Each structure stands twice: as structure tokens, then as C-alpha cells.
């Protein structure tokens, strides 16, 4: 291949709308067609399989039995994590998986029961590209959500405001666009929303407050669905969601004009999510040098991106979990209900040093030593072994064959330049390119040259950007 401006744009689209390019899987070189194809491929819906586990209430168990059940649960959760990570890398429905990740950070729940996690994740995936009101309703009735934000405990006599508060602050309007009274009244409207032992949504009429409520200036005998409807009718919700989409897919530096235009269209279209994304991905400003390569890859984007490019195979299938933890983003374990902060918060000197070391270690099958902080939430005390998760060793094997195939037509003196364009989303400064080209002098086989360059490129700060 020879990299042209068009290929750079397509790569940009693949990184942002999905998890980066995969050798041998090309998109049409014209952007509008490429976006159409992405959307078409994302019609496909592949849910995560249900964990093979009897859901029982662990709180009824004691001692060893409880510890054993907790261990099974943790392992099932880890399996789900790996399955999703794998699906992100192999699925053709790249945009759907990316949007599922987006919504996972937006409706961020941290749950223990694998079955509940799986159901919630599949709900997010199912409605990932649907009009926002459909998703909002589905997730508000999701057992995991009801559990995480305590709506199960929200009863007429003792309202619990947790869900109502986050619904307004984090899911729809954003801070500063409602009053404390709106939260109290919304909470009353959601009384009686809960789930049963089968993990299905139930409306418990006897716990529901049927009195009159005044919410956002409207008065009536509102129930939960009415509150959601009022929130959808409020253009603030469209602005808030559009801003978040923009920050996630375009840039941390929000361009108010672009967001205004997009959110107006989004609102008037009835919150057409596919349409909104198509507008973003086909806009001229999406392909300016200001936007391209300005995004710091999240740990998940970094890991999945490498997986797609180099077909990594981990020696231990749970190794990606260790990497997620040390990099600071574990799927199904967002830091809190407001999700991952993203952007520069991924980077400090230690996490950057690890990122720079990680790529080359994984690609050359080298043992990568990882020290983890203890995680008491998912790993209760083990009296014998205190530093139970001290040092872990992560190892993987890469498959360079497809990658080498991509470079087959590139002449030797162009190798560093072409590979940098293929692997990096920011242009590499000339002097750095010269150092790279210099690094393969004396290497005899083509394979060795390409591998050497790849190892160098993935260890650059520039590789952290997309």
C-alpha cells in the first residue's frame, strides 16, 4: 500500500468510529461511502453470551461457601470482560461496539453479578445506535441500573433520590439545569420501579407515590415514563448528549458552533443517533489536522487497537485484565457513576512509561512485569497471601504476517515513513523519521526491518494518540 491523504482520513475514521484499522480489512477510500459501510456493518448485533453461572444470592452464604461463590462470580465477570474486549477487536460492527463503550461510560454502573452485567451490556449494545429516547427508557428499566442507583429501595414512604439525581445530572440535562426540588419530585415519580428475582423490571404499584408532582415547571400525576418524556422534550438533553458525543468522538476541545448545529439537528430529528454520528463523521471539520491525532487513546482503545493491528495472542487469556488495571480502565468497573474522565487524565509519568514499554514487550513475546495495586472490591482478603496480586507477568505473541503483507510494495528507503503513516495518527517530525530509518541500517531481512520499525513506532509517545 501507499498511504495517501484519503487513506489517512479513512484510518482516522477507523480509529474514532471503531478501534483502528485491521490489515486486510479496508473501508472504501471515499469518506461518505466509508461511513455508510460502517453504519451498515453495525446493523449486525452480537450480544455477549450469558455467563455459565447460577445466580444465587451471595449474601445468604457464609464463610468458605461465600468465598467460593464470590470467586466464581469474579471469574465470570472477568470472562465477560475478555469476551467484550475480544468482540471489540474482531467484530465487524465496529461502530456499534464503540458506541456500546461510549454508553458504558455514560450510564456507568459498577456491578458485581455477572448476569446483571451481561444483561445491561447487551441492552446498551442493542440500543447503542437507536434513537436516544429508546435507550434512555430501556436503561432506566435495566435491573443493573435500578440496583446500582438504589431505585429498588425507592418507595413511597422512603424515597431514594439516587437514580433521579444522576438521571438529571449525568444522563440527560447536566449540572446546573435543574433544582434540588426537581430531583425530589422525579424521585417520587420513580417510586415502585424495581426488579424481581428473575432480574426483570417490575412496577410495584403499591410502592408508587400516586400524588401530584411538580417537575421542571410542569405539574401532574407523573410516573417514571412521564419524567423521561419531559427530559426528552427538553432541548438541554440534546445539547448535553451531543457535547458528550463530540468530546468522545471528535475532540476534548469542544467547538461550540459545531455542537450547537449538531444538537439542533439531533433534537429536531427526534434524537436520531445514527444520523448524528453520520453528520459528525462526514463533516469537513472532522478531518482537519486540529482533530486528527488529537485524542489520547483510552486504555481499551490502545489494547484493542494493538490487537487489531498485530493479532496479539496472550499466553494467559486473562492478561488483558491485568493490563486494563495497570492502565487505569477496567471494563465493567468505571471509577464511579460519572464514568471515565478520559483525555489527559489517562496520562501521568508512570502510566505513560508503562504505555511506552507495553507495546514493544507484547509484540516481541517478552515478559512484561506488572505490579498492581490491591483491589479490595473485587478481591476480598486472603489471609495467607497478602500481596495476593503483587507482580504479574503478561506475555503475548504477535502475528506480523498480515502487517508485512500490507508493506509489501513499499520501497526500502520509504519504509520508516510509510509505516509511521500507517501506525501513527500524527505526522512524525522529520528528525525522528531519520532516526527511525537509521535504526534498520544493517538489518538484512525485510521481515526484521519491518519488525524493528514496528517495535520502535509502538513505543513512541505519538502512538498514544489517535
Amino acid at each position, binding site marked *: 500500500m501507499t498511504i495517501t491523504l484519503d487513506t489517512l482520513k479513512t484510518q482516522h475514521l477507523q480509529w474514532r468510529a471503531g478501534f483502528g484499522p485491521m490489515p486486510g480489512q479496508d473501508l472504501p477510500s471515499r469518506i461518505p461511502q466509508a461511513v455508510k459501510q460502517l453504519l451498515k456493518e453495525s446493523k449486525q448485533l452480537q450480544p455477549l453470551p450469558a455467563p455459565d453461572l447460577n445466580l444465587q444470592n451471595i449474601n445468604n452464604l457464609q464463610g468458605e461457601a461465600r468465598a467460593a461463590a464470590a470467586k466464581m462470580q469474579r471469574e465470570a465477570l472477568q470472562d465477560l470482560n475478555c469476551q467484550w474486549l475480544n468482540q471489540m477487536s474482531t467484530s465487524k460492527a465496529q461502530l456499534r461496539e464503540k458506541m456500546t463503550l461510549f454508553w458504558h461510560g455514560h450510564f456507568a454502573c459498577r456491578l458485581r453479578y455477572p448476569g446483571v452485567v451481561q444483561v445491561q451490556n447487551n441492552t446498551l449494545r442493542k440500543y447503542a445506535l437507536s434513537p436516544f429516547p429508546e435507550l434512555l427508557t430501556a436503561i432506566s428499566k435495566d435491573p443493573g441500573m435500578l440496583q446500582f442507583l438504589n431505585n429498588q429501595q425507592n418507595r413511597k414512604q422512603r424515597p431514594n433520590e439516587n437514580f433521579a439525581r444522576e438521571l438529571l445530572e449525568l444522563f440527560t440535562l447536566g449540572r446546573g439545569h435543574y433544582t434540588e426540588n426537581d430531583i425530589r419530585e422525579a424521585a417520587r415519580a420513580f417510586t415502585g420501579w424495581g426488579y424481581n428475582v428473575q432480574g426483570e423490571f417490575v412496577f410495584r404499584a403499591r410502592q408508587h407515590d400516586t400524588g401530584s408532582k411538580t417537575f421542571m415547571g410542569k405539574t401532574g400525576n407523573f410516573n417514571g415514563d412521564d419524567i423521561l418524556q419531559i427530559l426528552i422534550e427538553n432541548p438541554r438533553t440534546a445539547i448535553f448528549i451531543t457535547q458528550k458525543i463530540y468530546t468522545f468522538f471528535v475532540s476534548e476541545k469542544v467547538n461550540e458552533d459545531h455542537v450547537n448545529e449538531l444538537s439542533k439537528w439531533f433534537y429536531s430529528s427526534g434524537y436520531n443517533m445514527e444520523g448524528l454520528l453520520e453528520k459528525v463523521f462526514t463533516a469537513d471539520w472532522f478531518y482537519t489536522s486540529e482533530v486528527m491525532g488529537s485524542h489520547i487513546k483510552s486504555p481499551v482503545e490502545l489494547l484493542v487497537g494493538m490487537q487489531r493491528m498485530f493479532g496479539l495472542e496472550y499466553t494467559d487469556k486473562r492478561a488483558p485484565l491485568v493490563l486494563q488495571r495497570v492502565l487505569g480502565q477496567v471494563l465493567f*468497573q468505571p471509577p464511579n457513576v460519572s464514568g471515565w474522565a478520559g483525555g489527559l487524565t489517562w496520562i501521568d*509519568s*508512570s*502510566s505513560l512509561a508503562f504505555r511506552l514499554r507495553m507495546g514493544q514487550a507484547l509484540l516481541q513475546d517478552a515478559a512484561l512485569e506488572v505490579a*498492581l495495586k*490491591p483491589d*479490595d472490591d473485587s478481591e476480598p482478603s486472603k489471609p495467607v497471601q*497478602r500481596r495476593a496480586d503483587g507482580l504479574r507477568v503478561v506475555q503475548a505473541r504477535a502475528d506480523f504476517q498480515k502487517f508485512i503483507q500490507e508493506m509489501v510494495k513499499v520501497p526500502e528507503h520509504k519504509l520508516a515513513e510509510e509505516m509511521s503513516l500507517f501506525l501513527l495518527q500524527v505526522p512524525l517530525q522529520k528528525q525522528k523519521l531519520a532516526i527511525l530509518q537509521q535504526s534498520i541500517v544493517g538489518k538484512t531481512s525485510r521481515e526484521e526491518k519491518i519488525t524493528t520499525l514496528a517495535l520502535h513506532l509502538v513505543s*513512541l509517545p505519538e502512538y498514544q494518540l489517535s
Partner: protein
Amino acid sequence: MSKSRRDFLKLSALASGMLFVPNFLHASQGMGLLGNSNGRRLVVIQLSGGNDGLNTVIPFEDDLYYKARPSLAINSGKVLQLQNGLGFHPSLDKMRQLYDQGFLTVMNSVGYPNPDRSHFRSTDIWHTASASDEYLKTGWLGRYLDSCCTGSSAAHMALEIDDSLSLALKGEKYNGMAVQDVRRFYQASQDRFLKQMAKTHHHDAHEHHQVDYLYKTLINSQQSAEYLHQQVRAYRSNQEYPKGEFSKNLKTIAELITSGVESRVYYASLSGFDTHIRQEAQQARLLQELSEGLYSFVQDLRQHQAFDDTLIVVFSEFGRRVNQNASNGTDHGTANNLFLIGGKLQKAGIYNAAPNLADLDAGDLKHQIDFRNIYATLLQNWMQADAGAVLGGSFKALDKLV
């Protein structure tokens, strides 16, 4: 530390830092030290997992304590008695010696309103100094760096002895730095290819600021590694430390302090306190490790005349329930005790009354002191920093504490 010695250190820091100041970082940015540095430093010790405070500082005259803990209560004959009906766990013999010398303050019932019983959430609340329903993405020590740092040396102004950095040390503009082992950290920073690339990197007006940011972080880290490595090479101490990771980390902090590293904040953790089952042996061992490690650390600092400028604070994300559970352990609770250790405490001993076991909130202790008031005190009265800027204004410093 005398003024002239500080000035000397500033100069030597500057000199070593200059070695790697690349052309895109101005020399004046190279090594800026804290404007209002008063030579004092803070050492924060986190007991991860939720230490059982009631079995650490024991209300051995309170029948309710013995009622709540039929098999876990510490026999009053074994308790190391302090005063006001409180005594230390038998493993804390060395800490009792610090207490007797007037180097230790026990603060009871420290917590926050609407306590969260999840480890990760409560840890975040302590790290970010947020309210229970507020989500902040920066930590209190990171914001301390933001409030008074200039230039690229900010990174090693706050050091965590670990391989990864806690949220507590992440600021908006500046982050602390995680260093488990200075020599290993230095060696890792010497990657030839990356050093070459970092040297070659120059600011390009057409490039994203993110590229510069990443290179700046990389270069700061290379510089700090160089600086710390040079400093600690000179360290000699004959202080004996107990075995174990935690004591080794305290020794690393002592090395850094006594070799003249100008960091203001040090951070270390001791983990394993999540004692849902078979608490007795586990907690006894951990408390012994804590007590003996801290004692050696204090002796080391005293030998080097560095103790008076050091304040140690020991906290845990929550205490545990008053009633023990059926597995000879305790489940997640709320308010807890907190220790201050230092050579210049204004109020050594027991700071406030023991927790009231007759007045519980659904089986949990009620907090009497908000931890953010303690943070405000440490920032304002000890570090002479702007507590309002770091904590958001409304938390008053506690009088006559440090």
C-alpha cells in the same frame, strides 16, 4: 533545614536538571520549586481495605464493645493502655512508645456525611476530598501541587512509593510521580531510543499540544529519575528496618528525605485490611508491620534531624462495623480513627472523645470530625498552602493540632 542548605539544594537540583532540558522547554521552566516552600513535608500512609479502628484503638472500658465482639474483642488485660479508657492493640507496642514520647495524636471518629461502604468509592472520596455524592477527577494532593507549583519539577514534588499513581496525587495541571525503587526507576528511564527521541523532539506550532504534553511528561520523568538517582546515591543510614514491602517503602522515603530531595509530599500504602474473615491474626500482623515500620522510620528521620519538619498522617478509607460477623471478621463500616505522627505536634495524645457505641447509625459509628477539616489543617497550618484553593473553601482548619 537551614535556609542556606535549601538554597544549595535548589541550585544542585537546577544543575542536574539542566542536563536534559530540551530546547522546547525553556530553561526557566526546567526546575521551578515551590514558591512558598517552608521546608516541611507530609508523609501520607494509607491502610487499604478498611482497617478495623475499634480493634486498633480499643475502648477497653466500654461493655458495649465487648458485647458487639464476642470472639473478636481484645481482652482488656492485653490492651496497651493510653488514656480516657482507650488503649492500643497489643501489636502497636512501638507506636505506644511514639505516643509516650509525645509524637503521636489519635483522632477518633473521623469520616464524612452519608458514608459510602464501597472500597473504591470511599477511597475516591478520601483521595479527591469530595462529598459523598460529588465526583471529582483530581486528588487533594494533586490540587495542592496545582495551587503552588511552577515548572516541570512539580512531578517529583509529590512522590508515591508504588508502581502506579493514586488519584490523590493527580492534579489538573500537575501530577505527582510514582517511584517504587529509585534505582530501577532511573534504569527504566534510560531507554536509549526514547532518550534520543525526546532529545530530538521540538515544539511545532502545527502540532497538537498533546504531542508536546506527552513528550513533556516523558522528559520530566527522565529528569526526575536523574535527579532522584543522583541525590539518593549519597544516602547512608544504619537504621534497621523490619522486613517487608511496607517498611522497605518507608526506608525509600527516608532515603529521599535525608538525602535532601526537596519533595513536599510522600505517599505509601499498606494493604490487606479487608478482614471479613479470620480477622485476628491478619490484623495483628499488619498492625505490627505498621507500628514497627513507622517506629524505624521515625528513628531514621530523628537521626538525620529531619523529624521536626515531617508530619505523618495514617488513614484508612473506612472503619468496620461495630458488630463482628459470623466468620470471625468484620464487614465494611464508616467512621474510623486517624493518626498524626510528628516531632512538633501541638496536641499529642488523644485528640477527642472515644466513639460513642450507644449512639450508632444502623450499627455504624457516627463521624465527629470531617476528614476534610483535617486536610485543611495539614494544608494550611502545616504546609502553609491555600487550603481554600485545594478543598474548595468551606473547610476550616482545626486549631492547635499541628
